[in-house]
């Protein structure tokens, strides 16, 4: 892992730490009486705060996970650095696209 990727990996980790704590709290709160779509959407629909919270979360997680996948592929698979990097970029873009779609689904629908 080069220095640039190392810094991105740690910076996104630092951004996500409080977001993950908040997400675990939301998981506990949301599942207190079973999950329903109406419950979830009543909290998130039209909320700029939730859109920003989970938008930042998705962006940070996509970068963090793709760098992690790149490290694992280059250390634990026979792939060379270039191929590991390419797969990681595709994975990161897929995560970012699916995550943005999920945030849009619960905030805008």
């Amino acid at each position, binding site marked *: 892992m080069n220095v640039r990727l190392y810094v991105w990996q*740690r910076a996104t*980790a*630092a951004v996500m*730490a409080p977001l*993950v*704590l908040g*997400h*675990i709290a939301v*998981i*506990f709160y949301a*599942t*207190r009486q*079973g*999950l*329903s*779509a*109406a419950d*979830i*959407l009543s909290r998130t629909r039209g909320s700029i705060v939730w859109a920003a919270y989970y938008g930042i979360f*998705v962006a940070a*997680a996509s970068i963090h*996970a793709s760098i*992690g*996948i790149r490290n*694992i592929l280059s250390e634990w698979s026979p792939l060379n650095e270039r191929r590991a990097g390419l797969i990681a970029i595709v*994975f990161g873009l*897929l*995560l970012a696209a*699916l*995550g943005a*779609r*999920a*945030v*849009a*689904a*619960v905030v805008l*629908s």
Partner: protein
Amino acid sequence: MIARQMKHRGDALWIAALVHRISGLALAIFLPFHFLALGLAIDGTARLDGFLRWTDQPLVKIAEGGLVLLLAAHLLGGLRILVIENFAWRDGQKQLATVAAAISLLVAVVFLARMF
């Protein structure tokens, strides 16, 4: 020779590093499915509700407990790494890693206890 080379793999901090990597990999594999599930709301509540009813099955709830365990373990393992790299070294890293594992397990057990 091989036994000597493998000896470090029984060390608590080597196991902590492995748990951090495996939990991160598992979460990365889970995330696209998580996003796809939430994306069901794009067509209204019916499809998301149908999926949520599927998650009421006991085995799915146990799997969700596993995901909470992975998330808590990866969070605490990551915090440990950030502290090691950005602050002065402190002794007792093995104890800290053990406490992190215990807290992760506790969070998952409490989650599962509330789900059943």
